[in-house]
């Protein structure tokens, strides 16, 4: 029977898979960029170093985001849902999305399709920020409710 506990396990598994994919991308970045610049029809061969720089710099916010998500899930798993710590984690996740968007935005100077990544990351950051605001209000309401006898 499907329940909340299994749902959290599935989400954690997805995060682990994404962590694995992220590591694989970073480790194989030299080959990946070689392959991409070879197959790319836009003639990106001269930008190989820039692509690698984007991958390595982008790794930092991406890894931190996945780590924060995992930490958030572990807290939810232990019943700590509407807490100030979770609000802080959501705030960090949101800013990490914006940091990823900034990396993609800077990378526009050599490859314009990065714009899609920048917009997607910024949009995600915005959604997480709204969720953070909702959870912050929920924390306040919970604190009030805890002191109603």
């Amino acid at each position, binding site marked *: 029977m499907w329940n909340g506990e299994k749902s959290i396990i599935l989400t954690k598994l997805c995060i682990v898979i994404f962590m694995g994919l992220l590591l694989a991308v970073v480790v194989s970045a030299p080959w990946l960029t070689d392959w991409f610049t070879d197959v790319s029809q836009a003639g990106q061969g001269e930008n190989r170093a820039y692509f690698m720089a984007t991958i390595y710099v982008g790794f930092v916010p991406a890894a931190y985001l996945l780590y924060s998500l995992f930490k958030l899930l572990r807290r939810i798993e232990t019943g700590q849902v509407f807490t100030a710590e979770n609000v802080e984690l959501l705030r960090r996740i949101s800013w990490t999305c914006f940091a990823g968007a900034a990396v993609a935005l800077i990378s526009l100077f050599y490859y314009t399709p990065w714009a899609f990544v920048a917009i997607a990351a910024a949009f995600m950051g915005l959604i997480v920020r709204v969720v953070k605001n909702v959870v912050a209000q929920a924390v306040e309401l919970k604190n*009030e409710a805890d*002191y*109603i*006898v």
Partner: protein
Amino acid sequence: MPIVVNLDVVMAKRKMSSGELAEKIDITQSNLSILKTGKAKAIRFSTLEAICKTLDCQPGDILEYRPDDGE
């Protein structure tokens, strides 16, 4: 907060322990402690009614308005 809870005074007059009162009014001891220590932000009418019934007193015996020094 200018609202002071005098529950411990009334309880002492009635010689009733926290555990006994909590059991009679059907709230947890930790919630009763929140009320007694003045940490509570609100009290339900149902809780107030149960306290008054059990301790045979009026709401005014339990709650008191004491203005802050600055007011």
